[in-house]
């Protein structure tokens, strides 16, 4: 039940273009150990700006 809820939450976040923070942390730990990592808030703001502030508004008519 909890897994289903988490899955729905992930789908909902993906619908508004927010990737998974955990995946980002995992990626940074694996590929760039020691490099500075954005905290959750910085990550959220970075992704928000990337989705809406850049090219390709990201949706259809």
């Amino acid at each position, binding site marked *: 039940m909890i897994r289903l809820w988490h899955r729905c939450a992930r789908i909902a976040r993906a*619908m508004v273009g927010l990737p998974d923070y955990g995946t980002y942390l995992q990626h940074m730990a694996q590929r760039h150990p020691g490099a500075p990592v954005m905290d959750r808030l910085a990550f959220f703001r970075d992704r928000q700006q990337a989705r809406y502030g850049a090219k390709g508004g990201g*949706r259809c008519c």
Partner: protein
Amino acid sequence: MLRHLPWIAIGTGGLAALAHVALSRGEPVNALWVVTAALGCFLVAYRYYALFIARHVMGLDAARPTPAVRRADGLDYVATDRTVLFGHHFAAIAGAGPLVGPVLAAQMGYLPGTLWIIFGVIFAGAVQDFIVLFLSMRRDGRSLGELVRMEMGQAAGTIALMGAFMIMVIILAVLALIVVRALAESPWGLFTVAATVPLAIFMGVYTRWIRPGRIGEVSLVGLVGLLAAIVYGEQIAASPVWGPAFTFTPQALCFILITYGAIASVLPVWLLLAPRDYLSTFLKIGAIVALAIGIVIMAPPLRMPPLTQFIGGGGPVWSGALFPFLFITIACGAVSGFHALIASGTTPKLIATEADAPLIGYGAMLAEAFVAIMALVGACILDPGIYFTMNSPAALIGTDAASASAAVTAMGYPIAAETIANVARDVGESTIISRTGGAPTLAVAMAEIFAHIAGGPGMKAFWYHFAILFEALFILTAVDAGTRAGRFMLQDLIGLAAPRFIEGRAQLAGLLCTALCVGAWGFFLYQGVTDPLGGVNTLWPIFGISNQMLAAIALMLGTAVLFRMKRDRFAWVTVVPTVWLLICTLSAGWLKLFSADPAVGFLAHATRFSDAIGRGEVLAPARDMEAMRAIVFNDRIDAALVAIFLLIVLALGGFTLRTVLAARRSPVPTVREIGGASTGITREDRALAAEGAAA
């Protein structure tokens, strides 16, 4: 063989339902037959045609690393679970288009629209989305313009980019026009939509400083605010002070929208755009799911006949005969060129393995077609008299219930004046006459369906305004986001011609391009709002032509690449829909330009009015000479626009032909993919390895 049996059953069921829909006469057909027919056909098409394309035409390789794997950065390139990505992609492609086109197409009856959506999506729309996703996925997730440039040359890429910008302008104008038509003279509707602006700003502040990043939480707060706005809107509309304050003419609303678009598109994204996008996205998905459940529970009969007398032309909603105009009226839902921009946007950077591409590329488009089918069902469960009352321009049916009742009854769809007044009262509006643009019609249908399930007839007004709000909300989000996207397209285009202009003064160039973009769609919006025939009549066909033109370009790109991959013998998969779209767009464009019927041809219409100006006459619906000149001017602009669209599509046809011939001459594949060879390791292999390591 055994594993095919369930699919054979589903396919036979779908086709039987379709035959029932197509062949039954007399008794009204239940909407569930249409839904069953669509579902059956879609499932079988997905199981067989999409997989055929994946395996044989594209040669998808689950072991080949996708951009999300090769360039993983945890931000833009993230290997994403397929159901999560499906949600992302579907939310990006499904907008107002599939809700509006089918409603307008209902003027020909439910059958032509149903057949075109089902077969159009299976053989054209879903193929287009899928092939563009495939192309972009194999080229680092590059955009459509870049793909055309890579495979067909610099000139072709620039022309495609210009086409995409012009389509963006037309889409924004037509979407804004739908909002204007739905909210003009409707204080309740306008109040609820206006309330979303402070609400979204509050949400923006909340996610920025109060509880940063809590999207779910803030969306719930927003939803409560929205529902309160709808409930409270009734009293606002009834209030002697606030009612008139929220009642605007279409012209006034047009300028409000243009100003809003200009301001909203330069505000920081977290303040207004992002929070409203959360609201509109979740509301959209929720409303679509609720509509599907509602149709299944209510199982309403289709009251619209399968075919109306307007299939030969002369319909009040839009002009022209079934061929070719039906095929451009329903664009989104059957085949939507705009998806080529989405399928070459964020999605290809998120796809975890090539094996997921059929579900995302082909499957999500089938889901959008299903939304279109529901919109068509919605329009067709209404009394046809109400449908034509709402969708005919005031120039044809007048503005009061008695004249509308007489005019629509004369069309052959008897409707009493009291019925018209009753429907308006039920949904809490002063009038429903000539509320063109599709959104109000769908809102009446949704109110009918939702009130049947929750709340009864007393709730119709609430559900009507809920439906209007849901459509207006994501249209406004699209206007805002689209203006930003259009600005970047324009900057790119200017950058190609004058790179130093962009580099030196980024800020100024940004503001200038925003102003140009708003000015461009604002011009067409104003033209549509002041058009005595309602504007939808003029703008929707231009939108349809441009959207199908982009689809044709995307499919031509697919064709060129298939030849360059040396997969000539499977090229029919894209060639057939390309040819069909070219036939439809070129003939529709030709008729819009040169038809002698002034109701269809822009130039014939312009000539009729300029001749009258020469004679010093004023023709209805113009009231004075100035209006006459405006009509002629607008006709010529529209004609020029259609001509440019035709030239763009012909030019790209030429580039495609050249590319294909060159590819035929080459003995080896000339395709330019990025990322190369397969690793031989699939996701399943990796999962097994991970399990092994864990054990």
